[in-house]
Each structure stands twice: as structure tokens, then as C-alpha cells.
């Protein structure tokens, strides 16, 4: 073994490690954040409502979590009837709706984000993927909410 050969081995080792790390990182990303989840949400007068579908398991119900102004509010299974979603071809059946009743919020603008909860690594890891765009709404003095971003075109 000469030092020239050692340098070649050093370069080979570096390339191999780079490939290994890249493979693991890409594999991990796809496992933890799979591109299967689609959904949409809106603010109604007293709730955040929408739907969520896992394209990889279209008959399964997706667990969704609501965050308002960056703070966790609630979690539920998206299993309410949404025949419009199935009719539009986004799901195989109609049972993919969710509806979070909103807590008392301060008067003024707020932002809601709904996330699909995904488990991987045999249940040891949980990740959140945002469904659709952030839902901007404002709460008036009577406690009613008005959606400021009601453009039902944004799907993910």
C-alpha cells in the first residue's frame, strides 16, 4: 500500500459515503413526508372545515390537526361526509371531511393551518404535512369568523 493508493481509497470512501448519505436522506424524506396527502380547508362562521385524503391509502381516514396562529388547537379524524370531494374525483368515497369547532378567539385577524398527521418508522415517528394553503380569517365582535382567503382552488 502506497500513499498514492491511500489517497485513491480516501477519495473512493468519500464518494461512497456521500452516495450513502444522500440515499438515506432522500429515502427518509420520502418515508417521513410522503407526497400522498391532499386536502383543502376554509373558515366558516364558527369552524374550520375541509377535507383530507391519503392517495396512497384512499379508503383510510386521515388524522388532521388544527393550529391557529401557530398554536395547536385540536386533532380529529377526517371522516365526515363530503360527497362533493368524491364527486370531484379527489377521493374514492365521501367520508373524508373534517370540521373543527373554533374556540373563543380574540377579535381581529387569525391564521389557521390544517396538517395531515403521518406515522412512519413503525409508529416511532410522526410528521405533519400542511393541507392546502393557510386559512386567513377574521373574528368580529360577535364571535363570527369571516374567511379572508376563500378561493377554493388551492389543493395539495
Amino acid at each position: 500500500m502506497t500513499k498514492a493508493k491511500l489517497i485513491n481509497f480516501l477519495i473512493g470512501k468519500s464518494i461512497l459515503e456521500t452516495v450513502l448519505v444522500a440515499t438515506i436522506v432522500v429515502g427518509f424524506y420520502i418515508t417521513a413526508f410522503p407526497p400522498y396527502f391532499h386536502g383543502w380547508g376554509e373558515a366558516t362562521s364558527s369552524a374550520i372545515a375541509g377535507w383530507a385524503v391519503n392517495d396512497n391509502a384512499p379508503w383510510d381516514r386521515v388524522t388532521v390537526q388544527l393550529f391557529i396562529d401557530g398554536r395547536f388547537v385540536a386533532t380529529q379524524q377526517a371522516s365526515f361526509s363530503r360527497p362533493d370531494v368524491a364527486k370531484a374525483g379527489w377521493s374514492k368515497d365521501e367520508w373524508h371531511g373534517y370540521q373543527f369547532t373554533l374556540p373563543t378567539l380574540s377579535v381581529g385577524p387569525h391564521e389557521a393551518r390544517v396538517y395531515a398527521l403521518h406515522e412512519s418508522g413503525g409508529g416511532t415517528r410522526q410528521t405533519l404535512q400542511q393541507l392546502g394553503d393557510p386559512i386567513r380569517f377574521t373574528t368580529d365582535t360577535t364571535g363570527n369568523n369571516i374567511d379572508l382567503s376563500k378561493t377554493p382552488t388551492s389543493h395539495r
Partner: protein
Amino acid sequence: MSDKQPQSDPAIGARTLAIAEIISVSLSCLIAEWVFLSFLSRYRWLVIVPLLLAVSFMVLSHKAYRESLHDLGFRSDNFLSALRLLVVPTLIAVVIIFLVGWYLTGPPSVPRLLRPRLLLLPAWALFQQYALQGYINRRAQTALGTGGKSILLVATVFAILHLPNPVLAALTLFGGLIWAAIYQREANLFALAASHTVASISLAMALPLNVINGLRVGFKYFG
């Protein structure tokens, strides 16, 4: 103007290669800790891949440098003289660890003393000392010479490998300085492994798990 062709200094080439070797082996360990053990939950055993790459590289490097096991410190002739150098700093470290542990949680409990995993510690300590001193310290001396700079480099590498655990990083920086300095005086890996084992057992026994976070390093430190 000189018409001589510029020639590369072989010493510079040797120093560059030694530094590249230290970086490469350290990166293999960091990849094992931060990538393989963290992201491959079901296939964690694949951690053997970067470790085997690193060990293979170290073995080839020893051949290229024509280093024998005796040169590396796998020897018995200077065991007692190395041990003599290690006794005082090791005892001081053990006393400090136990005093801090006693102050934080009281006397060490018997169940923690009897953890079977501790039986593997001498072999693990010998392997760590071989990598740290028998390889990295020797290459650090090639790059920076014997003395303070190379000792500091060895200790820094040892501490970086224990990040982001702040307690372990600080302790390994301190331990790395002492062990690297003593290796440069008396290269004996068995004596260093004995000191390492005693210090590690003291740490596991005396300090509360929440302080050392279960001796976790890499991404596992966070949960």
C-alpha cells in the same frame, strides 16, 4: 527570475494527507451517529457500513505509513509507566465526577452499578482509544507536530464526536487533552483504555441520567 520549476514540498503533502485522513475518519463517525443511527430505525445495524469503511481505511493507512501494532500502542512493555502517568488525572476525574453526582442526586444506587452493558465497556474503550490515539493522534502529529497543537486537535475531534451532548462534549474535551498528552509521552493503548473505562463507569454510575442524557450523542440526543 528563476527558471527552476516550482516543486511541491513533500512535507506539505504529508501534512495535507494527514489532515484529510483525520477529517475523513471523523466524518465517518459523525455519519454513523447523525445519519445511520438516527434515520434508519429498522436498519440501524447498517451503521456497520461507515464504521467498516473507517476501520478499513485506518488499517490501509497504517500499512501505507508502515506502522506496526507496537508503534500504535498495542504493547505491554510501557504499560506500567503509562499507567503511572494516568493514575493521578484519572483519580482526580473520578473523585470530581462522584462529588458532582453526590451533590446532584446523592450516593450512586446499586441497580445502576450492575448494568450488564458496562461489561462491554473495556473493549469499547480500547477501540475508541485506538481510533483516537493510535490513529488520529498519530496523524495529528504528522500534520502539526508533537505537542500542544496536535493534542488540542485530538481532544477537539473527540469532543465534536460527542456533540450535541454538552456535558459529554466538555468531559471528552478534558479527557481527550489528558489522554492525547499521555499517549504522546507513553504510547500504550491498554493503559489508556483502562483509564477510559474507569472514567466512563464513574460517569454512568455517579451522574444522573438527565444530566448526561443517557450518554446519547448525535440526533438521538434530542429524543
